[in-house]
């Protein structure tokens, strides 16, 4: 019972903070198209960066509390999908934080990098929305996203063999390490 309550609390925090991070990042990108929005962009960038950093450690806590709250986690397509979308959310959110950390607040001054940042933000927001929708389907039997005619069915999932999943994990880890170690060196971009 405590796990369920804890899960509700952590999920609320994670969703709220991550949504704030994404919306601020999107707004910071949009501010590029407005003259004289430099100060606003700086504030939005800071808010987005701090919120994203705060949301990152909450994600695994949400997963753990959700796992403890279920009697048989990942035994059906809906809960399996939650794990997959949590992975996507973590990936997009971490990419957003990494981009901001590597290039500094001037990341919004470069058109291509700021677009990459906003793609990460939109990816995070979409994944979080899907996660929340699956959670609502599991607990309430319905979700606000049901009004969309094209909302996908979550009664099905992409399940690969357990060992293949481990192989994919190793491959993903190797790809990430290679991207950091052997990729082009990056420089912070001036915020002026």
């Amino acid at each position, binding site marked *: 019972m405590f796990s369920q309550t804890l899960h509700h609390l952590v999920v609320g925090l994670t969703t709220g903070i991550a949504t704030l991070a994404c919306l601020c990042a999107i707004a910071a990108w949009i501010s590029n198209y407005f003259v004289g929005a430099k100060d606003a962009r700086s504030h939005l960038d800071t808010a987005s960066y701090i919120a994203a950093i705060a949301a990152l450690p909450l994600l695994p806590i949400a997963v753990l509390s959700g*796992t403890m709250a279920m009697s048989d*986690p*990942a*035994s*059906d*397509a809906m*809960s*399996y999908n939650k*794990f*997959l979308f*949590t*992975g*996507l959310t*973590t*990936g*997009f959110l*971490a*990419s957003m934080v*990494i*981009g901001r950390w*590597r*290039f500094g607040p001037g990341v919004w001054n*470069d058109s*291509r*990098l700021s677009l*990459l940042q906003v793609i*990460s933000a939109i*990816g995070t927001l979409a994944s979080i929305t899907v996660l929340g929708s699956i959670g609502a389907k599991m607990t309430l039997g319905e979700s606000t996203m049901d009004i969309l005619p094209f909302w996908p069915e979550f*009664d099905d*999932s*992409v*399940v*690969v*063999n*357990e060992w293949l*999943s*481990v192989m*994919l*994990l190793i*491959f*993903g*880890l190797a*790809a*990430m390490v*290679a*991207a*950091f170690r052997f*990729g*082009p*060196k*990056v*420089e912070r*971009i001036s915020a002026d």
Partner: protein
Amino acid sequence: MRGRILALATITLMLIATQGSVANPGGKGDGNRDFVCGGSCHGDPSLSAPSTATISITSGNTAFTGTAYQLDTTIEIDLISHSRILGVFLLSSTNGNGDNPEDHGWNIIQDPSGTTVNYVEVIVPTNGVVSLTWVLTAPEQVGDGDLIVAIHHGAGYEGLAYLGVSEPHSISIDPVPANLPGFALDWSAPNYRVTGDTSPVRVLTQNTTEISVEWKLEGESISHPATVEAGMEDEWLVHLPATMGDGRIVYRVTTSNGEFDVVQPWLTMGTIPPEFDGSLMGARAQGFAGAFMIIALMVSLQGLLQPARRKHELDQTEEVEAAEETPVEPVVEESTLDEDTAYRARLLKYDEHPGLLWDPVDEEWVDDPDYGGDE
């Protein structure tokens, strides 16, 4: 006085201990229930009102002991609550207890939801007409039996339960004619099949030499013949098409033995998804793999899309840094002395320029240190 206080305190405690009564406007779910749920609030005349719905039963009035009997009912309803939930009972009496047909010797083989209960809740469609079917086994005792359909529902926001009861449908339960073909007594119809499953449905019969089967999807009006393959004695394999998603197939078996042809009730078979074969470890690994791959992709793109590094013509930072990094050779005092001696040796003295020496290498006059200072 003390007695009054004690009585008041007891009454107050009892009132506090009493939980508020909460009705079930969203329904209570399918189940085995007596009329008005066994004397619940719906039986209270102050909390209920007669329904204006029309309930009709269109089934035969004869059944053979221990054989299948199908009860079809149609309910036409004009006033319904906003949730459109209608609760429908199949009863043998309306006493409030022991009303279930199973208490009167009947056995429910299949209810409208595909399970085996006497109370179901359905959503009333917009045309206000609900058609439901129960398949039962008749009692073993010869005689007369009654089946009654009762309903309850809400309407508007008045908070009243509207009740409706059909006229009792009398059925004459006759002895089974000798050699009557039918289902084997220990056979039960499968309720569900896995999505896409094309394996045949096994039907067990008695006193039967031949069967024919027709099928249709639930809601269709035209039925289709099914292929039947004879198995062992009184065993038949019926090939029905596979169903997908939420599809429900209904089929009807006609058992024959040359003397009798008995058309059995329609049986319903739903569809369930295949067993899920995911595991917690696999889900975690797949989730982490997805996260790492996205990070790898985005980090690579960040490196590729970063602005090109252009060096300003006045920017000598790299050269300065390189120079700073070059190790400085230790100064050897001896060599400095040698250099000083060589420098002094190359200086030329001219009498017409007292106090100055000429440096032919740098082509400049320098002060003569021996002359007396730096004038």
